[in-house]
């Protein structure tokens, strides 16, 4: 393993992110500058700086419109996406469309500025990268990153671009339940083949992975994800319930701030109901201090449909993998919402009373798995991971539509990566009207439009298209789809004349989410700027703190000075410095350093004078 190849594991969660490394033959979660093992996935813009993580989350109530969260729900998506639209109803920050792309509009340094979700994600990635770098005391260039299981190809590309902007090469993206499964599997080291189902119910997503463990081989059988399910939606049900009740009893409508506060209290009540049967909800200064109770039974009743749809996902993943529920050896729970007793009960009942595994840390498991995969990919020769291999699958199907409107399915869901599929398409020759409907190009040849779709049946999404020129003598074309381990999709088409590939009429495209290289370059340099700005602020704070520490030390020392003349002079100098500090909250680094130097000189001068006179 070389320095160049060294990679870290990052779990970029909807609510929290964490970073993990492989060191001395084991995985280690790195604590952030606050000493926490997870960092809130929050970014905030203020009059003077950009805050990331804990610093951003703690000031959200003071600065709600410029504090961004829920990035995995925004990245790689259009503003018209159903989930984005539903999120926009309650996100305090504003989401706008600019150049046909989704942007987030914030006030930064008293100016309006639009950021792409990739840029916001890159700030989170930078934070995680720096956390690891501070611990390792060296630069990190590569990372394996985990994302929710419902991420589609465009979202994968967007995450990769966010990595580039942050100065990190994302060498692999894995679904969070799959990553958690690796961490769990490596920990248990059981022998023989086992089928393991990982159920991941988080803040706003529900992901299920079904894997076959066999010694070190982790073979993903099927994955499924749903972003309409999770803790936030359970909160919604409670909020709606109480809003209805308040409307009925008090005939009063509620403001957005009221709703925000009710939501906070409902979330707390929900967590409490995981361990007790009843939770008291007390909201100060809302309708003369509103009080009410929520029982666990009521909470379960309000959410029964949602809970049931989580169970349906388990059923679906088993069907996809053609595995019967009796064949499942272990069911592993991760994600905060799996603490809900009703969920546990329903899952256990579904598996005929099976005991569920809750022993792995739900917040850290995904990052651990990512770090293991990072170690493997960076060529770590540790014995522990020598025989470990993840055989991952693609979560979405792909199909091709040709000019005649016929859709041919190409790659099925849950196919082991990497994938390469070729298919031959015959061009009609019997004077059919088909060729006549094609656009004629200047060389009197034809163009065939090839469109690439992701998804199947109810959900298809056009992700790319191109035109292939074909000569009149061609009878067939061959279309090839290549999906590599990094989920980059390449589509190529070539015309066939007498069974041979044409050397002229061929084309290959790589599906990308539309950020051009120039755009990425611009964002990289802007990210550099933000970073420099942040560094300047950190240095400034450091200089101020240094100065403060020096004054406080002096302040303590003068108590022991007997020479009243010297003492008075020093006290004057100290109080002047304190006043200056109070009046100069936002001074530059140099000024703090200069003031400290001046004070030092004054102190020496006072000492010289008084000692000399004595």
């Amino acid at each position: 393993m070389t320095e160049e190849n060294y990679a870290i594991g990052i779990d970029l969660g909807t609510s929290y992110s964490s970073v993990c490394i492989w060191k001395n033959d084991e995985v280690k979660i790195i604590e952030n500058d606050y000493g926490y093992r997870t960092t809130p996935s929050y970014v905030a813009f203020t009059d003077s700086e950009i805050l990331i993580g804990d610093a951003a989350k703690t000031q959200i109530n003071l600065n709600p419109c410029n504090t961004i969260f829920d990035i995995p729900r925004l990245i790689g998506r259009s503003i018209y996406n159903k989930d984005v639209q539903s999120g926009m109803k309650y996100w305090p920050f504003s989401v706008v469309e600019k150049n046909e792309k989704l942007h987030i509009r914030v006030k930064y340094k008293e100016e309006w500025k639009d950021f792409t979700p990739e840029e916001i994600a890159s700030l989170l990635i930078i934070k995680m990268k720096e956390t690891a770098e501070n611990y390792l005391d060296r630069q990190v260039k590569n990372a394996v990153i985990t994302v929710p299981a419902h991420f589609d190809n465009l979202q994968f590309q967007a995450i990769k671009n966010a990595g580039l902007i942050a100065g990190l090469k994302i060498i692999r993206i894995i679904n969070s339940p799959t990553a958690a499964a690796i961490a769990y599997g490596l920990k248990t080291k059981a022998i023989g083949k086992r089928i393991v189902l990982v159920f991941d119910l988080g803040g706003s997503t529900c992901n299920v992975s079904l894997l076959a463990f066999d010694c070190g081989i982790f073979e993903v059988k099927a994955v499924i994800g749903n972003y309409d399910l999770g803790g936030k939606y359970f909160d919604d049900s409670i909020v709606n319930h109480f809003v209805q009740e308040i409307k009925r009893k008090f005939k009063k409508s509620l403001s957005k701030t009221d709703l925000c506060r009710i939501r906070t209290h409902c979330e707390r009540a929900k967590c409490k109901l995981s361990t007790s049967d009843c939770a008291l909800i007390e909201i100060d200064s809302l309708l003369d201090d509103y009080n009410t109770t929520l029982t666990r039974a009521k909470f379960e009743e309000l959410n029964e449909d949602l809970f049931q749809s989580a169970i349906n996902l388990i059923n679906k993943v088993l069907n996809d993998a053609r595995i019967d529920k009796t064949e499942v050896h272990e069911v592993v729970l991760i994600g905060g919402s799996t603490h809900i007793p009703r969920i546990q009960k329903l899952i256990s009942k579904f598996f005929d009373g099976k005991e569920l595994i809750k022993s792995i840390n739900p917040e850290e498991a995904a990052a651990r798995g990512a770090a293991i995969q990072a170690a493997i990919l960076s060529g770590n020769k540790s014995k522990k991971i020598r025989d470990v291999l993840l055989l991952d699958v693609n979560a979405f199907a792909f199909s091709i539509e040709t000019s005649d409107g016929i859709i041919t399915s190409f790659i099925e869901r849950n196919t082991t990566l990497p994938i390469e599929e070729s298919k031959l398409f015959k061009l009609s020759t019997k004077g059919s009207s088909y060729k006549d409907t094609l656009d004629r190009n200047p060389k009197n040849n034809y163009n065939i439009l090839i469109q690439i779709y992701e998804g199947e049946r109810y959900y298809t999404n056009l992700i790319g298209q191109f035109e292939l020129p074909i000569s009149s003598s061609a009878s067939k074309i061959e279309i090839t789809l290549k999906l590599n381990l990094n989920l980059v999709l390449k589509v190529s088409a070539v015309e066939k004349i007498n069974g041979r590939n044409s050397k002229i009429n061929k084309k290959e495209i790589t599906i990308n989410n539309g950020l051009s290289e120039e755009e990425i370059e611009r964002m990289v340099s802007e990210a550099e700027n933000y970073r420099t700005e942040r560094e300047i602020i950190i240095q400034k704070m450091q200089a101020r703190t240094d100065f403060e520490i020096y004054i406080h030390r002096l302040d303590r020392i003068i108590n022991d000075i007997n020479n009243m003349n010297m003492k008075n002079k020093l006290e004057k100098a100290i109080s002047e410095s304190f006043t200056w500090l109070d009046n100069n909250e936002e001074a530059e680094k140099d000024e703090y350093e200069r003031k400290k130097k001046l004070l030092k000189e004054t102190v020496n001068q006072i000492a010289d004078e008084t000692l000399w006179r004595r």
Partner: protein
Amino acid sequence: MDTLPEYYAILEVPETATTDEIREAYKRKALETHPDRYTPGSKDSGINPRLSQEEAKIHFQKVADAYFVLSDKERRAQYDNTRASRKKRQGNSWQTSQADPDQVFGDVFE
């Protein structure tokens, strides 16, 4: 293009192999050829060390295809049937064992 692949040969198992044996063979072959594990020039892997990463990838794809078919009872039975009937046809001096792509995909554009 549509030659029937020799899945048993790819996994290096006999036609009579049990599901367990097929799985074992797949595990071994996957560790040898998967691009995450294969380093060109390394003698550790059972495959030709002169293969490039790209060639190893193609090798792995064949291995994965073979396992996909042979690990599932239904798919394996179907494969065995097709294979047997093609062999029979070859025995009857059938010109070619290739399926005519036109037959398979011809109706797509008509």
